């Protein structure tokens, strides 16, 4: 198993994409720090499922939008493990509103969780990766480069996340740390149900050339590849996992897709 003996922190890994990533990395032998914010039961279930794979899981509650909580999280990892090999910056939040209704609170909430957390976590993670190298992978979305209804603040936060990924990749390269991101289209998760409710996404099967929606495991597979030594020369890249949606839009328009 390629990640045997490695330690990975996956933020927001109680549910959805984060959970799938945690399980994928665990299946390759990595011990996992399961971070959650609002759903303890889900996080504990993820930890149980990780342990069933024969590796260790540590559940920690930390809102990554809160700088002090990030410090506590990394203090714990430093004290308990003294190292970190993989940081998956997955936790995300957002407010689905038209531009006119985005207030300072909604902006800061989203930016703090979706972007600032990568900066602060990467700073702390890099210290724990000192002398051993490491991998940092963030989860972005198509909304960083395409306009989705009521997605402004999240889309902008993801664009910033992607820019930060490039800067981190270069600054951390001399330390043997690979930094990349995976941008997914709408992924079938609990969070997506919220977005449906808020009118942010419609049924995207119709606009996915691959014929089905992206599932969390699709994203997890690419994240796991980016965490492997085979991906060592991929730096500062945003890998799109969308079943062809973004490159197939014009073709679908030509077909008169609804």
């Amino acid at each position, binding site marked *: 198993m390629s990640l045997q003996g490695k330690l990975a922190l996956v933020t927001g890994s109680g549910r959805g994409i984060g959970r799938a990533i945690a399980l994928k990395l665990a299946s390759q032998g990595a011990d996992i720090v399961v971070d959650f914010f*609002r*759903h*303890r*039961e889900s996080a504990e279930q993820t930890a149980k499922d990780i342990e069933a794979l024969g590796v260790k899981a540590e559940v920690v509650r930390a809102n990554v939008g809160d700088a002090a909580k990030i410090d506590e999280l990394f203090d714990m990892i430093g004290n308990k493990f003294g190292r970190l090999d993989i940081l998956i910056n997955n936790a995300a939040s957002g*407010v689905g509103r038209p531009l006119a209704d985005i207030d300072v*609170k*909604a902006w800061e*909430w989203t930016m703090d969780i979706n972007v600032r957390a990568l900066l602060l976590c990467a700073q702390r993670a890099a210290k724990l990766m000192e002398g051993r190298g490491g991998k940092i992978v963030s989860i972005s979305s198509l909304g960083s480069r395409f306009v989705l209804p009521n997605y402004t603040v999240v889309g902008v936060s993801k664009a910033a996340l992607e820019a930060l990924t490039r800067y981190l990749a270069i600054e951390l390269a001399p330390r043997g740390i690979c930094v990349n991101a995976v941008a997914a289209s709408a992924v079938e998760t609990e969070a997506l149900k919220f977005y449906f409710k808020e009118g942010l996404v419609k049924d995207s099967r119709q606009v996915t050339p691959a014929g089905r929606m992206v599932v969390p495991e699709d994203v997890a597979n690419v994240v796991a590849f980016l965490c492997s030594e085979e991906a060592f020369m991929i730096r500062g890249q945003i890998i799109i996992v969308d079943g062809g949606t973004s490159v197939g839009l014009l073709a679908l328009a030509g077909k008169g897709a609804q």
Partner: protein
Amino acid sequence: MNVEEQIKDILARITRVDKSIITRQSTFKEIKADSLDVVQALVAVEETFGIEIPDEDAQKFQNFGDFVSYVESRLPQKEKV
């Protein structure tokens, strides 16, 4: 200040409504609390009282009274007023 008043203060601060309009029967909608306000209120209440309120529990709150009763039920006996 009792638990109810403390939570009322937190909600009023976050939603910027006059706390006098908040009663135990008030829904979050009536307090003009959107989903972000509710999460921020939950976090503030958790930090104030040193408890954890999972979303699974918070989703069951029908009104402000449910929120207060839940917090009271989670506190050690001596802290209840």
